[in-house]
């Protein structure tokens, strides 16, 4: 481990990072206030999300100038992942009213960003090959898309539950969020987008590991495969048996939980060295 890599891994967060943290917090709070009935604040809340997104992007860019690649480690990838999630949320909210979803997604983005920047850097392999970088980039992108699909599925489940149980006085009902059919369809499309990316990432990962000569018996490898199997199964049952709605949403969330577990194990392993 050279001193250079030590320095690279422990680049301090930029001012933009702190702006993003404050904007994420404010956006989450504003979205909660909007949910509480102050609908006039909706544009302000979305503007705050936009600000968080821009600041977050600026932070990633700034790290780039310090030679910290967004896909050079799991820690960096987490920051990129939450950036993708926020961007996806912004994109979706141009079409639908996703106040409830935003109130759920913003804290997730915030936590991911903080974890990515403020956890101890630990030690990382210095010789990150191009193959490794592509693997991490694609895996992050794939998981980011799955994360968005999962967020939509989670909103679907909450809204569906309120509607089915006729909880007409709950927030989920009053918020008049995106219609169920649209949530279901959008989530499905996102999985179609994320699945091939994730598949390639998985294959490259396997090649990378075998090139490094490491053994395949670490728990994250089968878990990553489990994620892949979940989503593959989802696409099959949806296409062949017409599964949709509740069951599809649950399967989406299950797949994402497995993906999160993989990320978590990676992170712990890196921090532990």
């Amino acid at each position, binding site marked *: 481990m050279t001193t250079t890599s030590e320095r690279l891994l422990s680049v301090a967060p930029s001012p933009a990072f702190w702006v993003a943290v404050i904007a994420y917090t404010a956006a989450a709070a504003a979205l909660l206030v909007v949910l509480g009935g102050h609908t006039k604040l909706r544009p302000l809340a979305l503007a705050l999300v936009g600000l968080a997104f821009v600041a977050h992007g600026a932070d990633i860019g700034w790290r780039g100038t310090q030679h910290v690649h967004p896909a050079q480690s799991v820690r960096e990838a987490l920051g990129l992942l939450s950036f993708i999630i926020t961007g996806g949320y912004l994109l979706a909210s141009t079409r639908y009213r996703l106040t409830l979803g935003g109130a759920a997604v913003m804290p997730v983005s915030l936590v991911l960003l903080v974890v990515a920047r403020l956890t101890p850097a630990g030690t990382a392999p210095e010789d990150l090959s191009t193959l490794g970088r592509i693997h991490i980039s694609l895996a992050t992108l794939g998981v980011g898309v799955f994360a968005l699909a999962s967020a939509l599925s989670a909103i679907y489940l909450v809204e569906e539950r309120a509607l089915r149980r006729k909880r*007409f006085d709950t927030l989920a009902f009053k918020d008049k969020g995106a219609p169920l*059919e649209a949530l279901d369809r959008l989530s499905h499309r996102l999985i179609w987008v994320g699945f091939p990316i994730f598949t390639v990432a998985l294959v490259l990962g396997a090649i990378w590991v075998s090139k490094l000569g490491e053994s395949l018996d670490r728990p994250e490898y089968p878990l990553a495969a489990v994620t892949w199997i979940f989503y593959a199964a989802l696409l099959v049952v949806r296409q062949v048996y017409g*599964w949709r709605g509740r069951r599809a949403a649950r399967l989406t969330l299950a797949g994402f939980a497995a993906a999160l577990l993989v990320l978590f194990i990676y992170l712990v392993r890196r921090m532990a060295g």
Partner: protein
Amino acid sequence: MSELFVVGISWRTAPVAVREKLAFRDEELTGTLQAMTAGLPVAEALLVSTCNRVEVYGVAKPGSDATGPVRAFLATQRGLAPADVADVLYDHRGSAAVRHVFSVASALDSLVLGEAQILGQLKAAYGVASGAGTSGPLLARCLERAFGVAKRVRTETAIARGAANVSTVAVDLAKRVFGNLEGKHVLVVGAGKMSTLAARHLYASGAQRIVVTNRSPEKAETLAAEIDGIARPWAELERLLVDADVVISSTGAREPILTRTLFKRVTKARRWRQLVVIDIAVPRDAEPAIGEFDGVYVFDIDDLEKVVAANLAERAKAAEHAGRIVEHEAGQFEHWLRTQGVVPTIRALRDRFARVAERELQKTLDQLARKEHTPAQQREVVQRLVQLVINKLLHQPTTALREAPPDEAGMRAEILCQLFDLSPVEPAESAEPDEPREPPQALDRVAATPASPERKAAT
């Protein structure tokens, strides 16, 4: 000054049995309005006649009270004795009338708070009054402001949010699932009145196709013809359910029709596509258990009523905020009204002054143009001009003040002092009418010795 007034009857004061007696048909409005402005001390008038209210909004002729005659007029027009409807008719004048008009336009006075029809009805009534030539500047301003207030109330408060009747709630619930109903297929099971209404609402919201099925094919045909739908035989029910997106059920059957066993087959054949079942029949047509199938959402009449009640409660909460907006806007309108009263006076005063000054100035310029003047002469001419203008302007008020009847002289003098910010120094010395002779003399002296006006003023 002419004053706004309201005379009317509404659901608040009278049952429909009384309201209907006072109602006017559309084609009667113009004649009634014209009769009102021709025969009563009414300068401007508008008549709005809906199922929930019959009201006259008008402007009384200056100095007269119009509400009494209008009350009597409304009764006699409908062949009733004025005394019979005295208790159910109400009237408002001035600021109360403005508040009333604003509240009505904002649907705060409506049976269903925040409903949208009244605004359209008011606009139509205003159109009729304009056409009849009975709407004048004051009424026009008041109504236009009322429409603005109504818009503000609708956008700034939750008064119009949330469906307020069962069939719109049905549409609302379907939209929760499908977003928009374009291209969706609606199946009406049974031919009840409520299902007709709900089907119409769904169709108006963009639903593509309405299929009606009923045990008796004739009834299905009739209903289908009524709502531009297609009638299908009862035997096809299962297949129709597979094709539908929204089902409205209101049969008179004693036993459930949309049963669990039926839906087990139907949902599978649909591949669990979302299906909204609105069951407004009592006893219910749908077994509650079908709501457990994936993608099936069942709402019975109680659910719909519950949503309506919740929405109305929300509207009632918003009414308070809306009331504050109306109050504020009415205050602003009254302020405008007050300033509007003095504007013509101000304009006339300025015109008069300008005319006098213009005339004298022209004379002086002519005089200067006729022959050469030395600077000293020019100065004298200008001084004389100023003096002349002042004298001319003050002549009329001075005379009016001097010749005022004794009981008014004091008041006029006081108003003058206020308007010109005067503080007469010797009011006690001579309160006699010949006292005002003083100012012209003083002015003469000022004109004679213009170089020291301050000293003169001090003496």
